[in-house]
């Protein structure tokens, strides 16, 4: 496999990891906070919400996935262009819409489908460019 192709595959894998981790983390966070219940903006209410969140297994799973997102984001930015990774990670919006339709039975408006189509087309165009155009420091092992 050529270096260029290896770089493209490695970048794609990390961007996919980012999208999966962010989408799963956000969905679990939403589910966990729904279990905790509406947060009352008083000292007692905030404390109860914090305690509820910290004792929720769902929220800890969400945090784990969001840490996974952070690590994959930092790692991919160590070799790939920011202007390549940032738009590519917008696939998360499309993923959330698909998860909503397929798993949660949500109805999506035609306008939203147009938005998802534009994101997919945009990501496809960005994917046609080289993932790395700037200088990357090599680390001696």
């Amino acid at each position, binding site marked *: 496999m050529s270096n260029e192709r290896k770089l493209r595959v490695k970048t794609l894998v990390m961007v996919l990891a980012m999208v999966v981790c962010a989408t799963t983390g956000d969905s679990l966070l939403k589910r966990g906070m729904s279990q905790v219940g509406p947060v009352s903006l008083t000292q007692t209410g905030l404390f109860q919400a914090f305690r509820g969140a910290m004792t929720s297994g769902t929220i800890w799973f969400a945090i784990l996935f969001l840490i996974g997102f952070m690590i994959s984001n930092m790692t991919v*930015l160590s070799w790939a262009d920011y*202007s390549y990774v940032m738009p590519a990670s917008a696939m998360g919006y499309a993923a959330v819409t698909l998860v909503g339709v397929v798993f949660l039975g949500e109805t999506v408006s035609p306008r*939203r489908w147009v938005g998802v189509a534009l994101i997919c087309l945009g990501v496809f165009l960005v994917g046609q460019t080289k993932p790395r155009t700037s200088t990357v420091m090599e680390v001696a092992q």
Partner: protein
Amino acid sequence: MIRSAITLGIFVLSGSAGELAVTHGMKKAGAPEHLRIRDVTNFLGRAFCNGWFWVGVPLMALSFYLLMVLLSWEPISLVIPASALSYVVGTLGAKYILKEDVNGIRWAGVFLVCIGVAIVAAG
């Protein structure tokens, strides 16, 4: 309205500046040779010791705080789509600050993603 527009501008600029600083820090830290746990852990150690990472984090925190402020002033259907401007501002920063080669195809992709995100976020 002017207050919200100025805050939106600072929100977009601080968020993009923070991400550009973190990106610069990650490039300085050097990419892991392989995607093995040991190599990635070593990379994270270098990344957390890099000053640019710690320049970026507070800027991103400021951006997040301003997002909360904006959401308390304006409807979410206005704030979140407007925040899609970050894609264009971030790409400008990548081109002129990080010296990335942003060609016409990448610009077209960025604009489509920006419009698409604004439409999706508007609901």
